[in-house]
């Protein structure tokens, strides 16, 4: 009988890579490859492109726009360009009496958007009866603040941007949602509310995230703000939603 691996009990307490073996001073080959695989999946998520045809089929009436960043390399080097809508895209955006616009943005993980954005939008729409929602916008080479240009151009009171979060080794397809009241260019990040870590590997579920988003959207319209002030009021929320917003 080989002795029991003493690390097994401790691994229940952390997903850190503890108790690895050694080849001399180095990691064992299986651990090297496991790490390389995780890193490769994360990098692929950063450099993947949105499947626009599939997204448009799933989101009827969706309009595709892009930022001023030309390509992924410029996007990574120039965050400022990823925050501004390309001039030719403004005319594609219809203006209206909208309570909210939902923007689906690649961010740093197109994989996160392809895996999670459509079910997240559907879960949100089920909870937003009575809201005047603009046609969905699909944005590429997009940072969070690109939603400010979009919301401002469309005259929407709220912009909720669903964006791929920076991939980690453990999860490379995590989606975040940032909500901004009265979106306009130059809005500070402290004036937004964020729902983070939406994915299907032990992250926030679509239903919970959508409950939170719907609550935030109703309260934002009622109080006329998003950001720190609204976060403090989220004590009214219960359970997992409250915990997620606090983190």
């Amino acid at each position, binding site marked *: 009988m*080989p*002795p029991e691996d*003493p690390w097994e009990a401790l691994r229940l307490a*952390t997903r850190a890579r503890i108790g690895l073996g050694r080849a001399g001073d180095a990691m064992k080959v299986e*651990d090297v490859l496991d790490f390389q695989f*995780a*890193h490769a999946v994360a990098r692929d998520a950063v450099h993947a492109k949105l499947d626009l045809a599939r997204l448009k089929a799933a989101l009827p009436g969706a309009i595709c726009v892009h930022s001023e960043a030309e390509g992924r390399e410029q996007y990574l*080097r120039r*965050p400022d360009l990823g925050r501004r809508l390309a001039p030719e895209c403004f005319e594609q955006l219809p203006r209206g009496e909208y309570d909210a616009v939902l923007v689906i943005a690649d961010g740093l993980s197109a994989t996160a958007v392809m895996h999670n954005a459509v079910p997240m939008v559907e879960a949100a729409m089920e909870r937003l009866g009575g809201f005047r929602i603009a046609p969905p916008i699909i944005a590429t080479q997009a940072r969070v603040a690109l939603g400010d240009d979009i919301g401002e151009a469309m005259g929407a009171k709220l912009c909720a941007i669903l964006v791929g979060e920076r991939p980690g*080794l453990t999860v490379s397809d995590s989606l975040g949602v940032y909500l901004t009241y009265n979106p306009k260019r130059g809005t500070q990040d402290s004036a937004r509310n964020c729902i983070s870590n939406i994915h299907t590997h032990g992250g926030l579920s679509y239903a919970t995230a959508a409950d939170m988003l719907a609550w935030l959207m109703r309260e934002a319209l009622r109080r006329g703000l998003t950001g720190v002030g609204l976060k403090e009021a989220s004590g009214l929320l219960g359970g997992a939603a409250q915990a997620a917003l606090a983190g």
Partner: protein
Amino acid sequence: MGNYAHSFRGETYRFADLQAVLARASARRSGDELAGLAASSDAERVAARAVLADLPLKIFLEEPLIPYEEDEVTRLIFDTHDAAAFAPVSHMTVGQFRDWLLSYEADSATLAALAPGLTPEMVAAVSKLMRNQDLIAVARKCVVVKTFRNTVGLPGRLSSRLQPNHPTDDLKGIAASTLDGLLYGSGDAVIGINPATDNVQNCLRLLGMLDELRSRYEIPTQTCVLTHVTNAIEVIQAGGAVDLVFQSIAGSQKANEGFGVSLSILREAQDAALSLKRGTIGNDVMYFETGQGAALSADAHWGLDQQTIETRAYAVARAYQPLLVNTVVGFIGPEYLYDGKQIIRAGLEDHFCAKLLGVPMGCDVCYTNHAEADQDDMDTLMTLLTAAGVSFVIAVPGADDVMLNYQSLAYHDILYLRSVFNARPAPEFEVWLEKMDMVDRAGRMKLPTPSNAVLQRLIGDHRDAA
């Protein structure tokens, strides 16, 4: 204003001011391009270096790059400058200074005596004229030794910070990652946690656990929860076991305000930590982190390139006799350091500049998943930094920080570096490893098999405690 120009093959390159000369002389990096400060061509970059090489070192004492009246970091630099220490090199140009640094005459004792006479701007300037091998060769001559419960920075030694982070600050998970690192001989610089939840109550909880662990095994090292300096002061007032006070700092008053700190609050925190008298062989109680891009990201760079303003952060650090300082070189993202080449260059610059100023520099050899870098680049940088005599590097289980979601070095890498360079841990920690029967006859860390007595004891204690 001087006339900054250089001609080469019939082309004349002109630079508006000293700031522009420095920025355009910098090795190419994305952060300077983002800021609109970088050289517009490779030839212009070399022309800027040629201008810089002919400038007198003392120009940096005559022309503050950030106004004295508007910036307390500038005031600190000028008010604490030691003219007598500067005298031996005061007649040199920046180019002559580079050659002199590499000369046999500039030995460890000479460089240590010179450090108080140098300003960050002088050091940043000369680094721009130095190739990577120059940065390594000169840094290796700079010996900066600091003490608390052990001795960090002795020649022939390499220390490491054991970083047992956990996404929910789970005490058992943190203990597991800590024990894992100790079995690799990591943790002699500090056992330091980045808390997932940064408040006083949680810091007290984490510090209590770390201090209990350190006391139980009588480990000659120091522990730290990397909370904001104002929290640390409250934790000390609440009776917390604070060995080291941590703070992120940068090279301008405005950037430090972005971090929520000032020089006076840092002094208050240092005094509070000193009052606890927890050090056994020394009282270097401060731990600082820095990193190129921090000032620009706070829009507090005053038109300076990111390497020059980074170096000014080391003037802040050295005013507080830190035990540890490290640059988080690859953490800030590809908009500041795009790829492995830029991260490696910046890591060597940061280490050289800090050491020449007399600051005990370590490095978080690291990268994020949106940078063009991988473990091969980290292998290169950690190897070069160890050749350069880096005070310490940071290590996490399997190079994967599951809380901050980036890649640093693995505990294994500490074994590799110590083996390849015959570098040993801090002497007091080395004795402890031997006492714990964790080292074999060749001085290598034993491979802990499941039946290993030390492993069984460490883990057994924690299984029971859980």
